[in-house]
């Protein structure tokens, strides 16, 4: 299964970026093969508006079924919900730790956005 994790850096040892739409990178990790694809999110970091919408569309196109991040705003959440992507929130630590926590089922999923727009 593919999961998306917001990240400060380009590899699994990087810290999780608590922001979703404006995260530095988004790593798409295959939990079976441990393959990791790096999405450079620079364009969205400085986007005027709609960063969350764009980031959510991107991970949906990558085929991610779960998003693990710190905070997710209402517009992004609407897209993730429409795409059937579950959102695990209040995530911290390294991306590698988070992937282990996911595999062990230790993630809390949210039913609504947990941040305001333009947070």
């Amino acid at each position, binding site marked *: 299964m593919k999961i998306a994790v917001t990240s400060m850096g380009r590899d699994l040892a990087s810290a999780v970026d608590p922001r979703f739409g404006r995260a530095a990178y988004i790593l798409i990790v295959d939990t079976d093969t441990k393959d990791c694809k790096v999405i450079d999110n620079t364009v969205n970091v400085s986007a005027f508006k*709609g960063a969350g919408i764009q980031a959510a*569309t991107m991970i949906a196109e990558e085929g991610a079924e779960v998003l693990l991040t710190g905070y997710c705003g209402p517009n992004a959440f609407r897209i993730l919900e429409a*795409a059937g992507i579950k959102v695990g929130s209040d995530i911290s630590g390294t991306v590698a730790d988070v992937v282990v926590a996911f595999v062990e089922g230790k993630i809390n999923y949210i039913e609504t956005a947990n941040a305001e727009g333009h947070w």
Partner: protein
Amino acid sequence: MIISVASGKGGTGKTTVATNMALSMEGGCTLLDCDVEEPNVHLFLHPVIERRETVTTFIPAVDDSRCTWCRKCADICRFRAIAVVGQKVLVFPELCHSCGGCQVICPEQAIGEGLRELGVVEWGEGAGVPVVQGRIRVGEAMAPPLIRKVRAAAKSDGTVIIDAPPGTSCPVIAAMRGVDFVLLVTEPTPFGLHDLELAVGAVRLLDIPCGLVINRADMGDDRVRQYARREQLPVLLEIPFDRRIAETYSRGRMIVEELPEWKEKFRDLFRRIEERVEAAPKGRTEQ
């Protein structure tokens, strides 16, 4: 003739100048409050509202039965107001700038006309002055189309005075574009000068003749006047930092009524603007 009263910096006295000039006019005029995010002309002229119209703007309304999820609408939208995920199209009305690009590019004619309320335009009369004001809907971010509606509500003949919003962004441009004269109200402070320079830059881009009113003219320093001389900007009126004027304003009263000697000064201000408009070359940018 249309005069836009603008400023750059907020709180310099745009509304004071616009309302007092409007009230002094011998030939009468229409006053437009185009500061739709916080209109305040009504605090001074107390217009009785006779008519109110809701202003709406286009947003896409997607017909799911025709959509093939080709994403062309999402790709063309630079504001991310429309997104396609799998076989779902999501519209984010508050992000839409109503360009209609999605509707034009859709090969299936699946995008129809939806509406978002921008605010209201209100017509009334206060202290004998016809007033038109715009009030933006709370939460709405897009002021320029509402401002254009307020401007379209003014009769084309006769004198029109526009109370513009502060700053130099899109709403201000909407309140200045195509007018005959921009009157910039400033104050002799570093902030006043800084924002005045930005405002003058915007007015020059629009190629509109302009002049200055220096409010609280006897405080601060001389740099605004030095700048005006350097840039050949006429100072058409100076208003001193006078306690009686401040008290009149803070009670919501009109300077030209409480301190009648000011009526002639505001008339003179208008005459000086008129002279400059008549002397200016014709054929500027249309609205």
